[in-house]
């Protein structure tokens, strides 16, 4: 009798688990491999790219980045899975305040080992239908072996104080170029 009671208590306690609502079949989620933050005029643009071969770009704009993220999550037919996001691309035109806001926001959403990079035109990187996240990650990992400053994980960048060191990446002829800059 005691044993049955323990089992019932154990099972009942599970009904309040958050994981109950987290149930999704694997094909019901979109795995996001890279995201980009940019600004056009007064609207903040949030772009995500999944690992699918076609139709893999999803974009939204709002008054702020947090609203843009919220809107995209709400409006998508499938839930977006950010936990495998490899690269966070920030438009280099954004101000230091915006970058700091993005980093703060990213800490709640993206994995701590995701790489943060700058790009002169972030939408250029995510423009094509070709998924770029893991390819870019591999490129960065190769570069990290030779230049330690390129290593820009979210965790490391979030711990930097006033001056933030970030790699700036551009796509040229199907390849990438990189250099490290300080954002003040």
């Amino acid at each position, binding site marked *: 009798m005691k*044993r049955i009671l*323990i*089992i019932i208590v*154990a*099972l009942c*306690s*599970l009904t309040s*688990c958050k*994981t*109950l609502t*987290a*149930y*999704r*079949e*694997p*094909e019901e*989620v979109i*795995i996001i*491999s890279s995201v980009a933050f940019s600004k056009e005029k007064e609207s903040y643009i949030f772009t995500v790219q999944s*690992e699918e071969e076609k139709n893999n770009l999803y974009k939204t704009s709002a008054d702020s980045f947090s609203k843009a993220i919220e809107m995209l999550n709400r409006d998508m037919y499938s839930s977006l*899975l950010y*936990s*495998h996001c*490899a690269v966070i691309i920030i438009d280099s035109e954004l101000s230091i305040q915006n970058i700091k806001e993005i980093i703060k926001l990213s800490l709640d959403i993206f*994995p701590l080992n995701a790489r943060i990079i700058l790009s002169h035109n972030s939408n250029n990187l995510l423009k094509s239908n070709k998924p770029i996240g*893991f390819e870019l990650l591999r490129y960065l990992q190769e570069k990290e072996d030779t230049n330690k400053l390129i290593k820009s994980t979210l965790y490391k960048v979030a711990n930097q104080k006033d001056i933030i060191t970030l790699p700036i990446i551009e796509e040229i002829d199907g390849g990438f170029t990189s250099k490290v800059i300080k954002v003040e």
Partner: protein
Amino acid sequence: MDIFDYENIKLTDNFEENTAYIKDIFKNDDIFRTRDFLFMGKYKCAIFFLDGMVNNVILNESLLEPMLSFKAEPFEAALDDFILERVIYAAESKKNETVADMLSALLYGDTLLIIEGCKSGITVNTKGWRTRGISNSENEKVLWGPKEAFDEAVMLNMAMLRRKLPTPDLCVEFVKIGRRTDTRAFITYLSSIVNRKALNILKERLKKIDIDGILDANYVGELINKNKFSLFKTIGTTERPDTVASNLLEGRVALFIDGTPVVLTLPYLFSENFQSGDDYYTNYIFAFIGRILRYICFFLSISVPALYLALITHHKQLVPTDFLLTVIKSRDGVPIPCILECLLLLFIFEILRETGQRVPQSMGHALSIVGGLVVGQASVEARIVSAPTLIAVALSGIAGLMVQRLNSAVVYSRFILVLLGNYFGLFGYIAGVFTLMSIIFSLDSFGTDYTSSLIKPNFSTLKDTFFRAPWYKMNSRPYTLSENRKRQGERK
């Protein structure tokens, strides 16, 4: 009427009446044989036996020939005592007072001799029924070490045990179970080291059995088991004489039952599920690998499908990205949800396993082709199931085969954990594992904690659990089993 109905019935001194009475009991039995003759040319005698149950050579040479060829001589004792002492050659013969005793011996292959003017009947051991004989152990195979397994004839089994333990310390207590089958059973133990508590509990529970027939050890096993609804075995079963001998040497009790090659051993501990004869017959370093693999496989067999489902449906963030992408790609086009896919494969695996045990050996190849290619490869190609799920279920199934003794527990636990993992994620799985552990730790086997060898902080009991210590280190018996702990003396 059963044998116990004849318990108070005795024969008279009227020969014709006695023989008619015995014949009347077996009037519907066509293999019942009888023969009348004169002893010393004047005393009427009759023998009764069951055809096929007796050895005709023994019957002729030890009973009929001496009786018929005996030359008349004067005697003062009663006729039945005189025949018993002076005439019959058989090594085992005795005088019976009640009809129940006579019938019991007769039905077990003895020959009954009724003599004119005597109220008692003499039974002569002429047993001669055929047995399967000693063969290799099918269910507990070992690469090295003894190969022989028990037979269905309990006396042969007792002889095999005696050969392993030629010591007067070996006690054999005879009990009869089953109102109609009158099945012979023997409680065996080593008197100086036996776990008395377990022995007494066994005797008490055996006394309470009131069933018409016992045809196998499992009948008795279920009737004497306190944990009736437990998935985990709390009574050991073996068909190997060496295993019984080693169990007795650790202070356990063995119950031999006539008509089955399976012997029950108790108390049975959880760690015994992971032991194999080979562990003791090969190098202890090598044995460690096998032993630890069995523990790992038990964990894998109950956990892999549940963990797989929990991770891909609830905790995708914990799955490596490449693996998650592979799962998603392989799930493309599969019409059923992961849980149904998993349950379907587990169900098919159980069908294949059950079929594999029952089909003749010659059909085994066909079955493996059907199971491996048709159900496995074809169902993946037809997009009925996905390859990662198939791999998870196959790994779980194969791992489960490593711990055959925990088969029922593994099958049920696996299904329950799969459901918990799918609907509650890792929290459900962990809750399930804790519940399972609470069940295991609450069990006891004939007065001994089921997990006593694992939880008591005593290194000597651990020497034969997760690993097997070298023999020179196993100086004492597990204290949870026997109070007489000294296994070996000081080495010189």
